[in-house]
């Protein structure tokens, strides 16, 4: 194995981006196969490298997705359900922001822009999403501490299992930060497409608050 790593130092580093289990099972064989391809006098080295490099990104994406999917299947139901519920709760924010931006600020003249409704989709729903997902995260940590005797930090950073909860909680917190951290919701919700195109001006607007 060592001499293959020495022979292909860059490729063996790239192989580290595969999921660990896949690397352990197939990493050495992939290096050996590459060596076999290059040692074959009938093969042109440039063609071998081109084939290997072109094949790499698709393969790595596929393997990462496949291992993520396999991990999700082992996730407890409450993690999946809470994450899906959280996604539904933050979805109106993105939906209304896009609709408002692409429909000449149509929302601003509708019922949805009245204070109570505005508070609901801007503040209440994302807050519920954050609370539910953090609660599920805490439940996971407690469960891991009690059953697997894992430390709280280890359970919390088990990203393969907890990423849906963490992702939704961060999205929810991001929405709340934009609204409460800066009085700058108008910078983002006015016309999101234009504002994304003029990211620098949007950022200046957010900083001004």
């Amino acid at each position, binding site marked *: *194995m060592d001499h293959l790593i020495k022979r292909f130092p860059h490729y063996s580093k790239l192989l580290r981006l595969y999921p660990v289990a896949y690397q352990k099972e*197939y990493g050495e*064989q*992939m290096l050996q196969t590459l060596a076999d*391809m290059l040692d074959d006098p009938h093969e042109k080295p440039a063609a071998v490298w081109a084939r290997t490099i072109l094949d790499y990104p698709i*393969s790595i994406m596929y393997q990462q997705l496949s291992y993520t999917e396999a991990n999700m299947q082992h996730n407890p139901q409450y993690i*999946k359900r809470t994450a899906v519920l959280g996604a539904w709760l933050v979805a109106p924010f993105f939906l209304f922001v896009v609709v408002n931006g692409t429909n000449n600020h149509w929302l601003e003249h509708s019922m949805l822009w009245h204070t109570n409704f505005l508070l609901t989709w801007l503040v209440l729903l994302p807050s519920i999403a954050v609370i539910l997902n953090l609660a599920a995260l805490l439940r996971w940590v407690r469960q891991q501490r009690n059953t697997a005797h894992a430390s709280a930090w280890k359970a919390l950073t088990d990203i393969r299992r907890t990423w849906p909860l963490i992702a939704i909680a961060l999205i929810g917190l991001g929405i709340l930060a934009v609204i409460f951290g800066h009085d700058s919701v108008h910078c983002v919700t006015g016309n999101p497409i234009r504002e994304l195109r003029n990211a620098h001006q949007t950022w200046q607007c957010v900083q001004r608050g």
Partner: protein
Amino acid sequence: MSIDDISVFDIIEIMTKRNNSLLPQVTFSILFALSLKPRHGYELMQQVAHDSNGKVQLGPGALYGTIKLLREDNLIEEMPFESDNERRRYYRLTRKGLNRLNAELEYFENTVRLAQERRLLGSNMGDIIWTT
């Protein structure tokens, strides 16, 4: 089970589940290449390229990704093999893999027969009169 019990993750799972009705090209090519004898990775690549007249050229990622799927489905297995290089691992068809390959070949045989009957193969293509 009610509709409420189905989450988005279940739907994704169903959508991404491998379709067992027909094998993808690379999967079929690897099973076909293993039908002659057990092979290691590079031998498989060469045989697949040979069988497909050079049309299917695999890289290491595609090859071992497919080998992983085939092993998970128990269609091929790793086998002990006396070799000059112990890093090379050899794979062979399982009984299930052989049955799967036979089923696939039967399908292709039937398709080729139908194509011949319909004069769709090779130079006969010129005989087709297109109608609107």
